[in-house]
């Protein structure tokens, strides 16, 4: 079972409505994605806590349906600029 990028983004935004979510499909197999999630909700949180918030938003799909999600999180002021 795989997941669509849009599905992942929607799930994250449901729990983190003010997040900016950028998803990249690394292999085109619906199983290996990279995600950058930028949200004010991460302010003051450790990286582990930030990632746990995203995993929580994915409601148990992480590690199950979604095998690999290379995750990068930050508050807006620390967000990488491309």
């Amino acid at each position, binding site marked *: 079972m795989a997941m669509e990028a849009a599905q992942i983004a929607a799930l994250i935004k449901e729990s983190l409505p003010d997040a900016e979510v950028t998803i990249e499909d690394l292999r085109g197999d619906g199983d290996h994605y990279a995600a950058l999630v930028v949200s004010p909700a991460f302010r003051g949180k450790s*990286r*582990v806590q930030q*990632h*746990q918030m995203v*995993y929580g938003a994915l409601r*148990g799909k*992480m*590690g*199950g349906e979604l095998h*690999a999600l*290379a*995750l*990068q999180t930050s508050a807006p002021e620390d967000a990488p600029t491309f």
Partner: protein
Amino acid sequence: MSGNPVYDRIQQDLNENPVVLYMKGTPMFPQCGFSAAVVQILSDLGVKFKGIDVLVDPSLRDGIKQFTNWPTIPQLYVKGEFVGGCDIVREMAANGELAGLLKEKGLLS
């Protein structure tokens, strides 16, 4: 003791080993790219660590995820504290934070 035998075993491993990596496979033969990546990072830093293969014990494989409230493997611990999975360890290695943490804990000369 927590009354959960798997948690007790995890806690014992963490108490007895300063650096523990819960992984798929062994440091010599990692069975997953993410586990192999963290093994490589630790080897490059030259830090001694205990690799624990969760594939040989399904109760540990699930137990460690609940213990940490972290859904994936690998998981790196330093002095009993959860540091992160592959993404976070990679990020910390890249910006020098991991070496700093290990030095601060007296685990890296």
